[in-house]
């Protein structure tokens, strides 16, 4: 018995060590640094400064990520729903093949593509111009907050759709067939039969997306030059321009607080699932 306990401990040890070394230790250091001034004294000045200079950016970040998450949820429900409920086999096959592509593209590459795609005289507006839909001279570029949202949604939708579509595929189809027999429309089946049954998978996917988007630096820095901007940009700026790790870490802790909300939702949905099982 004792031996097996030791073996269990040894088995857990690598994972535990990784969590301690790569998460708990940096988190603690970050927390300490955020309440320490340059002379080494304990202070809340870093948070005061973060609030004074970057509160708009904190709100902006939260809004951008929340709006993106909402779009991702709607689109992935749509994609998953069509894969389950669609009637044209060919369209389903094409969609199944196409929708995963952005998954394999890193954020920085996605941002670089969007920079030329969404610009005022970029690929998108020029294509519309060629089709005669708009006049590119009077077009607007999307390289601002809208560009950030478009990039996030484009990049993260396949990830959530993959999870949601998997959950939808494993549903008991008899409920869907029953609804169909009673004459329910496809939209209604999706909203009232399918989505409620895959909500926990949806929440997991959206939570992971939310946390990922919160931590991305390349997209806001490459897409939008204006202000307000996302707090990852501010953190990089504090460090590169002022060697100011204190305020950067204060911003980091604020970002931890935001992810904590998402983590709470994630854990709650996990617990609910366990309760169901």
């Amino acid at each position, binding site marked *: 018995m004792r031996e097996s306990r030791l073996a269990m401990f040894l088995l857990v040890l690598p994972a535990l060590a990784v969590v301690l070394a790569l998460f708990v230790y940096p988190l603690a*250091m970050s927390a300490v640094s955020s309440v320490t001034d340059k002379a080494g004294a304990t202070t809340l000045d870093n948070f005061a400064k973060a609030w*004074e*200079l970057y509160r708009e950016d904190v709100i902006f970040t939260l809004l951008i990520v929340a709006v993106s998450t909402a779009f991702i949820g709607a689109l992935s429900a749509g994609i998953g729903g069509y894969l389950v409920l669609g009637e044209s086999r060919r369209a389903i096959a094409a969609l199944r093949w196409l929708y995963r592509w952005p998954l394999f593209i890193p954020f920085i590459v996605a941002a670089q593509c969007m*920079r*030329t795609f969404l*610009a*005022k*005289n*970029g690929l998108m507006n020029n294509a519309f111009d060629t089709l005669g839909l708009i006049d590119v001279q009077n077009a607007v*570029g999307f*390289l601002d907050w809208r560009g950030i949202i478009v990039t996030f949604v484009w990049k993260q939708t396949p990830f959530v759709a993959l999870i949601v579509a998997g959950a939808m595929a494993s549903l008991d189809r008899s409920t869907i067939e029953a609804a169909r027999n009673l004459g329910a429309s496809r939209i209604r089946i999706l909203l009232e039969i399918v989505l409620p049954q895959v909500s926990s998978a949806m929440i997991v996917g959206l939570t992971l997306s939310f946390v990922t988007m919160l931590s991305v630096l390349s997209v806001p*820095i*490459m*897409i*939008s*030059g*204006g*202000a*307000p*901007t996302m707090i990852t*940009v*501010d953190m*990089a*700026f504090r*460090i*590169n*321009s*002022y*060697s100011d*790790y204190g305020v950067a870490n204060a911003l980091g802790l604020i970002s931890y607080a935001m992810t904590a909300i998402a983590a709470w939702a994630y854990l709650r949905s996990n617990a609910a699932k366990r309760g169901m099982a």
Partner: protein
Amino acid sequence: MRRSLLLSAAIALSAVLAASPGHAQRKVTLNVVTAGDQNMVDYVKDYLAPIFEKDHPDVTVKSVGTGPGDAGSQKIYEKLVAEKGNAEWDIDVAVIHQKAAGQMVSEGLLAAYVNDVATGKLVHSPAASNSLGANVAGYVIPMFNSQTAIAYNSQLVKDPPGTYADLVKWVDANPKKFGYNGIKGGMSGVSFVVGWIYAYTPDAEKLMKGPYDPNLKGTWDAAWSSLKAFNEKVVLTPGNAGTLDMLGRGEIEMGPVWVDMFYTWQADGKLPPSVKLKLIGPGMPGQPMYYTVPAKAANKKLAEQFIELATSPKVQADGIVKRFNWYPGIDATEVKSQLDDATWNKLFVDVTPQDLQTKGKTFPITPYFNDILEGYEKKVQ
């Protein structure tokens, strides 16, 4: 922190490897450590090292990069401080930014080598003696000078503004046709903002030379509010490259750029030839990087010979001007005779040597620099 640790570990390791006495022919290794982007490391490794090794068959040049920006120079500084007690230091030539140079001279980490090097007499720019307020005469030779200027599309802008005041008028008449990248997306935007403060406060000289007065930043409110109004009528671009991208696509007609990046992009065909440069008054900042020799460098004599080669008119002409589109570190007049007219004209036709002398400014001393950046964060954006 972790990154800097890793990096210094890498530097230390390569230095140990380099210094280990296993080499059969008793080859000497010259450690050249450069801050700055990868192109700096490549310049030393692929261009300078082969020339130097040809003349010195028993020497191997080892090029190590410490990363871009002032953070890269900071790592070199930290390493030398850590080695302070040793009899010999393992960095022979250090290429550093201005911020670090002043600090390292004042702390006695650098050797006053310039008088021992023949090319030391070929440098007369103020940057060779004044580094963001610190006196560095005798300790540094500029490797190159980099300058920011306003790029404009000459087909659309027939009469480009010559000063900040003219630019403001132009922007009033042509809203959303001027673009710059704020202060968080790269140094060309920072440089534009610093130039703004030089133009709209009476303090330019003091900002560049010191001494520091913490109350001065309180007097810049008018300059900030006019910049805020100016920002309403311009496009904020994503980064140094973002400004060049937008110029190339014709989305904006004007914007601040680094001269060397500008010419590299134009040579690659990413900017049309109709885009030209103008250095506007009262002036915009640029910055050099410096060749230095640490005070206890193990191979001091060789280091001096290496720098002598690197700052010779021929190498400055072929390497710095022709290959990288930087302005030469030594006096431009010394370099001119080594270059064909086409190359020379390319670099100096839009921005003349006189422009550089009168309108090429330095960045402010460090505490003022930080005040300017934070003032912008608080009052403009």
